């Protein structure tokens, strides 16, 4: 791992809506800031700080983050209305949720904006993985095009009823793991809410012995 922990300055450059609750921000990449795909930073605006995984790849000119507007979430609300040019502080990078290739197949499992680290990995050239992305509605499947091109198998898992896109699975990612992923040993990468990580890990223990499990929990 080549990264070094430090505080950097950046500015807000662009904001793009992804869905009614999620948006993407692009910020300037601080000079000398280096990270590995899958890592996160502590992003601060004013006195509010929160950890976000980086969506962009290290070779890209700017840093991109995918943010879900949370009711009562101070930073996500601020970022959703901040002026372009707003000064941000970037502390990091943190974490060890990085891709470690082995001879086994990689299975990425994400819920909601937990897709972010897998975006960064894919944009960095990692391919040939299976990706399960759990969301409620089809419109929450941001970055679907990117994954359709690079994944060996891309399985959107939708919990709300219709419309159900082609090749999508109706149900939670954990239900897919429990009933549809062929048995065997894999390298699992889980990113999302605690409940998904707990349930997925227990299923992996049961159904996919001798697998490796890497996790990144979103709060």
């Amino acid at each position, binding site marked *: *791992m080549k990264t070094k922990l430090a505080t950097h300055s950046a500015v807000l450059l662009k904001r793009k809506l992804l869905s009614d609750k999620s948006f993407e921000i692009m910020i300037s990449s601080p000079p000398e800031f280096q990270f590995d795909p899958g890592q996160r930073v502590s992003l601060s605006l004013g006195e509010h700080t929160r950890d976000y995984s980086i969506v962009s790849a290290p070779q890209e000119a700017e840093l991109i983050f995918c943010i879900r507007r949370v009711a009562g979430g101070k930073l996500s609300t601020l970022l959703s209305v901040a002026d372009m040019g707003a000064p941000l502080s970037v502390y990091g990078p943190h974490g*060890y949720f*990085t891709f*470690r*290739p*082995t001879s086994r197949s990689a299975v990425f499992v994400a819920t909601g904006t937990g897709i972010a680290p897998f975006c960064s990995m894919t944009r960095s050239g990692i391919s040939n993985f299976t990706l399960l992305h759990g969301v409620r509605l089809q419109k929450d499947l941001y970055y679907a095009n990117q994954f359709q091109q690079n994944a060996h198998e891309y399985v959107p898992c939708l919990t709300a009823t219709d419309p159900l896109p082609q090749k999508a699975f109706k149900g939670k990612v954990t239900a897919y793991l429990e009933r549809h992923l062929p048995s065997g040993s894999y*390298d699992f990468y889980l990113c999302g809410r*605690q409940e998904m*990580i*707990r349930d997925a*890990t*227990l299923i*992996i*223990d049961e159904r996919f012995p001798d*697998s*490796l*499990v*890497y*996790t990144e*929990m979103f*709060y």
Partner: protein
Amino acid sequence: MKIYTGTGDKGKTSLFSGDRVSKADARIDACGDLDELNSILGALAAHLATEEKRVAELQQIQSDLLQAGAWLATRPDSSATDSLREISTDQIHFLENAIDSYEEELPKLNAFILPGGHIIAAWAHLARTVCRRCERKAVSLITQPMKSQVAEPYQHLLVYLNRLSDYLFVLARHCNRIHGIADKPWKL
């Protein structure tokens, strides 16, 4: 952020290298002992609260032990070792320098001593014995799979634990000395 994840409710846990192992696995056992040692050092530091230099020393060691734990929680053949920072010779020298400086002030020993004396010294002796247990488990984990030569990061880890036991021994004697208590020699 909740402290409980629930992923270990059925007796398994994850290594840093991603392996799902029993909580009774030798690596988890060794990490548990390092955690026990770290907690005893915390108790020791709490007793030494007025001695800022000693507390800073112990907190540095507590941090080093977390670093050591990451190595024991990672299978040596995993690429996850690339993410780990080695125990450096500087960290070992830090202990050696502290040992040398304590020893300069201590009377020479001509016999085994009974672990104990002042309550703080007793904590230091307890930490020393747990440290030796950590070392034994680390030796078992490290030397068995590497029958030929032990890789440098692991060699440093073993040296560090060996030196830490010595440090805790002289720290115990230092604590007795500053509280005016003579170490009690062993008599048959």
